């Protein structure tokens, strides 16, 4: 099962084994990881599951659709080149070892 590492804003690391087909957001919420709010439940509607993906792993992630791109313009913490909405990061085998950092705030 692909392993995903979540780094909280305070530096705390959490590693989760995430089933293929589950999103990075869903896994975080299931395990009660603070720092991902996911207010809309994964509909790409609220921009409160914002994460920063380790730069060299961006290419492993599903391509960004136009809706996600626009929602990222409205995140509470600054958008960076490696910003993604974790509800759109559906885990695939190639994403094993993914590292995401959570922003200071989601709202």
């Amino acid at each position, binding site marked *: 099962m692909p392993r995903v590492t979540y780094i909280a804003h305070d530096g705390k690391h959490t590693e989760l084994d995430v089933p293929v087909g589950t999103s990075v957001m869903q896994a975080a919420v299931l395990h*009660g990881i603070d720092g991902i709010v996911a207010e809309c439940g994964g509909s790409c509607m609220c921009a409160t599951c914002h994460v920063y993906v380790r730069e060299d792993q961006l290419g492993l992630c599903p391509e960004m659709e136009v809706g996600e*791109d*626009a929602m990222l313009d409205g995140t509470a913490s600054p958008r960076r080149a490696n910003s993604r909405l974790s509800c759109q990061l559906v885990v695939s085998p190639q994403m094993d070892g993914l590292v995401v950092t959570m922003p200071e705030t989601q709202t």
Partner: protein
Amino acid sequence: MAVSRVVILGAGHGGFQLAASLRQGGFDGEVVLVGDEDALPYQRPPLSKDYLSGKVGLDLVLMRPAAFYREHRIDYRAGRRAVALDRARRQVRLADGASLAYDHLVLATGARNRVPPLAGIALDGVCYLRNLAETDALRARLAAARSIVVIGAGFIGLEFAAVARAMGKPVHIVELADRVMGRVVCAETSAYFAAAHRAAGVEFSFSMQAAEIAGAGGRVGHVALADGTRLAADLVVVSVGVVPNTELAADSGLAVANGIVVDERLLTADPAISAIGDCAAFPCRHADGRPTRLEAVQNATDHARCVADRLLGKPHPYEALPWFWSEQGDLRLQIAGLTAGHDRVVLRGNPESGQFSAFCYAGGRLLGIESINRPAEHAFARRLLAAGRSVAPEEAADERFDLRAAAMARPG
């Protein structure tokens, strides 16, 4: 006196968020979250979509796992119903006879299904779609249903119809008004959605009242309409709106007028009691300060954060922009702002392309934007309206006009 014990009545989106936000903000006192259902707090939007269709299970619908409540010292009391408030003694009485003392009480009691006074409404096979238990019951029946009548063409009725049609079930929707979602969207958006549902095989009876539900052996068999038509049905879904749960407040002498009346800080006239979410009528900045009651996740969670900030010693008036969404089959409707009362609609994009936005104006002022399968424009719309900015109707209609730039411009 410092608040050391917060009691939250209602464990929906608002109640849960308040508890979570208090802890996130460093609140060190007691947090008691009282819910009248047995499950852990869960998200409602997926119920009428992916949960109903079986695409996701309960674990993915829960707000947080059980450990979250322990780790954050949130005293979640499941299956408990409050029956009375004793404001003088600052106590809540529960149905099981227990009493809960509070320093601050938050009414997050939500709303319940409106049950129309129809003959046969209690027959077996008449279902609702608001909470988890109702959805579980409906999901079990949906699999076996052969003909379905939906009463009410709002978000819930249409979302349900889309799921049922995707399963190949015949669906007939009866609506009192002359169009779908008449309370919340403009005529143009209504027409687009009605046509899309028709194309998917949904039948409609508009401007039509259901007269009675009838059947043999205590089971629903048909719905009779006011014009005498009989629609065969072995499953009837009633989705005609909700009634706010205001009785606790009213019985204790707090003002109620289409919701528990609160000020711009979401406080009732009793400084120890706030009200948030579907049950609260608040002066809405985005409706010229008019008392407003909204049924929406955004409203509930933003209310919760506002009250949490106040209890954490950082009070501010509630000013968040209302927004809403609905997913009906392949159609994604996103609404920014409150579009009721508009006198002009300008379309950006061609509905025939399957994606457009409707800009709703009143007296030349932009009230809100309804986006259909245009999530980017919705995101820009929220930014634009939250900043109190506008775009002229001719700009809105011109697809070459850079909406993103207008939305991202510095305020002022």
